[in-house]
């Protein structure tokens, strides 16, 4: 036993035999905002894990790879992490397209994947039969479930009945849009408008004019951060009367909350830096200590949780054996900034982490994003425009 | 008509224009031009700048389609034929401003003419023919040089060699003597005569009067888009209208 400890220590000192986790993220290209945020989350988690003694008695090692937000770059990068750097586990993953592209080598090498992002349904198809695929981010249909739940409340409380939908014409906005519309209808809403727009074009004039004619209670837009201000501007300029302008971009423009036009705009997030939960406060404090700033991006805490839970499971398993670690990770029940993390089945995959219940709805009120729903998270009453 | 005297009675027409006109916007660049070019003949088109000579040549070679009128090459109506079809029908052209393919070798330049100007010819054969033409035009020593390295005179030779490679029945020459000094021009005159002697009819535009005098069997004088006079060199230069419009007070200036 003593001998074992000694060799363990020596190994730790030499670094050889340390557990290696490969992290594939879009550090450049279209998805780099989320990718860079996630990277910070991983680095923070790494610090904490190693300060607490590392994994299996050795310091944990991270190996970052940049998928460039492009499938053709992601595949070699993934293979490099697995075969050259010989990482024991893979983490990361933000974009859906790159995640699908690496599903081939992932299955070929039977890679253990603790995946944070990639919420599109085809990803679920691609990894449906992969034994070691743990998915943290809710699938797209969970997002919608959360939104529908909120809108239903608005229907009963605010008599919101007419919904206008504006969605970007790429995969982010268009995924499952038909299902979305029919679900709204099934839930008793009138979908008075469903219009595509081109993200980043700033051309919302015609769309808002059209919405004006449709007289919606809620304008639900599915787009990116670049669309937030132009849309809000156009709504205000054309004086479109709304109960709520509700959007689900992956991130919001920097400083948007300070712009008057953001007032009362509502949105969806897994997490807000202002969240009062103890886990969240702990994360914000630690983040601030390490980087000197706060982050608005939920991919930072998501990545943090991802690595922490993975490390905990490896320690619990006592080895890097994939089956053992998978069994431990599947049993996870840990408090996180998003609420407790557990894994259960989704429509097609075995291990799905966060689901619809983890989403929270916020509103830009004053100079900040304030949770308004579910009620247990709400810090202020929501403002309804009508 | 006096012109008839300079044409051998037995000659067959190779190129015939009937009332060709071309308008650009409001400008009548060429108006009702008719002429007949006979086999084995060297025909000159002269006239003051802006008389429409270049437009006429462009109508003949297919750069423009005529607004009205018709054009025959031997028995074929080529009024609206695209340039490549005219080429296959037997019409060759050398440009005033030489247009070699600059990044090709001299040999390749001529090979293009041989390869695409004739039907059913294979590459090695075309290269052989091209090389023979280079020898005939005195360019063989430069065969493997890039065309953009040539001097003006060599460029002009290349231009003619390339046109000849298409095996034309009629060769249109657009001021090919421009920029040549008299001794060179004299050489070029011999070259053109040799081409005619090999059975190719020649139609050329030229400003240098001694060249016109030495070469042309017959001269067509154009002014303001129309045919002003037609006949032998001596006949047209004696025509007071031609002198007034074209030669000016010092007709001997170029002698």
């Amino acid at each position, binding site marked *: 036993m003593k001998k074992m400890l000694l060799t363990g220590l020596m190994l730790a000192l030499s670094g050889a035999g340390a557990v290696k986790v490969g992290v594939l993220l879009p550090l*450049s290209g*279209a998805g*780099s*905002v989320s990718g*860079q945020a996630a990277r910070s989350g991983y680095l923070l988690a790494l610090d904490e894990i190693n300060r607490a003694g590392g994994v299996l008695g050795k310091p944990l090692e991270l190996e970052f790879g940049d998928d460039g937000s492009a499938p053709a770059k992601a595949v070699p990068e993934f293979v490099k992490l697995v075969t050259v750097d010989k990482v024991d586990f893979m983490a990361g993953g933000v974009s859906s397209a790159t995640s699908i592209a690496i599903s081939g080598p992932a299955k070929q090498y039977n890679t253990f994947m603790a995946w944070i992002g990639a919420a599109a349904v085809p990803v679920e198809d691609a990894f449906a039969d992969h034994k070691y695929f743990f998915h943290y981010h809710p699938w797209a249909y969970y997002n919608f479930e959360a939104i529908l739940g909120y809108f239903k409340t608005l229907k009963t409380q605010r008599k919101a009945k007419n919904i206008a939908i*504006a969605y970007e*014409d790429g995969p982010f906005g268009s995924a499952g849009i038909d299902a979305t519309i029919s679900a709204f209808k099934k839930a008793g809403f009138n979908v008075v408008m469903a*219009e*595509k*727009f*081109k993200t*980043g*074009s*700033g*051309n919302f*004039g*015609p*769309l808002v*004019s*059209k919405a004006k*004619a449709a007289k919606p209670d809620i304008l639900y837009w599915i787009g*990116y*951060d*670049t669309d*937030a*201000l*132009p849309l*809000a*501007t*156009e709504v*205000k*300029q*054309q*004086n479109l009367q709304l109960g709520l302008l509700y959007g689900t971009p992956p*991130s919001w*423009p*920097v*400083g*948007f909350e*300070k*712009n*008057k*036009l953001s007032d009362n705009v509502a949105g969806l997030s897994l997490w807000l830096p202002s969240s009062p939960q103890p886990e969240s406060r702990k994360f914000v404090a630690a983040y601030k200590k390490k980087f000197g700033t706060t982050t608005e991006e939920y991919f930072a805490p998501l990545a943090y949780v991802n690595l922490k839970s993975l490390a905990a499971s490896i320690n619990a398993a006592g080895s890097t054996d994939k089956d053992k670690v998978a069994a431990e990770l599947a049993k996870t029940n840990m408090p996180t900034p998003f609420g407790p993390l557990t894994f259960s089945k989704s429509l097609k995959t075995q291990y799905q982490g966060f689901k619809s219940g983890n989403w929270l709805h916020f509103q830009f009120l004053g100079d900040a994003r304030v949770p308004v729903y579910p009620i247990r998270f709400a810090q202020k009453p929501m403002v309804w425009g009508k | 008509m006096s012109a008839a005297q300079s044409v051998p009675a037995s000659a067959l027409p190779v190129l015939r224009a009937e009332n060709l006109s071309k308008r*650009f916007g409001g400008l009548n660049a060429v108006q009702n031009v008719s002429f007949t070019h006979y086999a084995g003949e060297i025909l000159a088109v002269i006239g003051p700048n802006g008389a429409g000579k270049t437009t006429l040549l462009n109508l003949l070679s297919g750069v*423009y*389609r005529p607004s009205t009128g018709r054009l025959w090459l031997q028995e074929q109506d080529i009024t609206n034929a695209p340039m490549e079809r005219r080429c296959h029908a037997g019409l060759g052209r050398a440009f005033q401003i030489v247009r070699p393919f600059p990044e090709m070798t001299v040999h390749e330049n001529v090979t293009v003419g041989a390869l695409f100007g004739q039907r059913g010819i294979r590459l090695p054969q075309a290269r052989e023919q091209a090389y023979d033409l280079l020898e005939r035009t005195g360019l063989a020593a430069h065969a493997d040089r890039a065309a953009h390295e040539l001097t003006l005179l060599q460029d002009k030779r290349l231009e003619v060699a390339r046109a000849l490679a298409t095996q034309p029945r009629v060769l249109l020459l657009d001021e090919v003597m421009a920029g040549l000094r008299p001794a060179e021009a004299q050489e070029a005159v011999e070259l053109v005569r040799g081409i005619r002697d090999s059975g190719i009819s020649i139609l050329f535009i030229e400003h240098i009067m001694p060249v016109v005098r030495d070469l042309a069997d017959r001269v067509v004088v154009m002014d303001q888009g129309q045919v002003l006079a037609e006949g032998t060199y001596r006949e047209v230069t004696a025509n007071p209208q031609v002198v007034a419009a074209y030669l000016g007070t010092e007709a001997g200036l170029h002698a």
Partner: protein
Amino acid sequence: MDLFLQTLLNGLLQSGIYALVASGLALSVGVVGIVNFAHGEFLMIGAFLAWAASASLGIDPLLSLPVVALAVFGVGALTYRVSIRHVLLAPELNQMLLTFGLGILLQNLALMLLGGNTRTVSTPYQASSLQLGALTVGGPKAVAFAFALALLGTLYFVLYRTTLGRQMRAVAQNRRGAQLIGINVDRVYMLAFGVSCGLAAVAGVLVSVLLFASPTVGLVFALKAFAIIVMAGLGNLTGVLWASVLLGVSEALVQTYVPGGGGWSDAVFFLMIFGTLVLRSFRGNR
């Protein structure tokens, strides 16, 4: 009827942004003969400078506009000095590759320094609008449209009524001829390229007010601006305005009256350009 008029108006206002971006590009293509693939990146620099002035110093973007334009003019002139002038006589493809490399460099420099986030500025007039009966005219967009008109008008005036402008046109039409009558061709090119970049920055400042600033903000607009100047006929300034209006309005009509039109508007935009170019080529003066 109101919807129809509002749609026309929406299209017209959008076309102002297009014309604004295209005007600078028209100058570099028309005078210097350089297809500047990095034009959108100069726009991006303008947008970021305006954002920086607004975010850190609290200066309104419209106030910082002259300084920003001048600064980017300087960047453009410098760019000309160290790179563009060395490829003026090179094949068009080489020039394209050079400006393309420049675009990659500038965009990624911005990404590296600022991250990929979208930034917005806040101004009190951002949401201002003018009500004409049932019709709405967005304030900043109207300003942008006016800017586009003024810029194109000024450009036209400069090119056709001033000595410098004549020199620019002379250089554009015949470089050697211009050189031989004593025009300092290099200097004219540098000025024209610099001004072209400065105009991109003006567009960038307005885009930062209207929309946002981000490292990739130039891409969408530069691509469309290219298409517009080509459709207008290279170097044709009045054509730039007409092409912008035509495309802006047709986009708006498609977005409003075609189901799912927002998705199709790009197709219509590029289809019109494709059609115009092809038809024009077949209508040639043959």
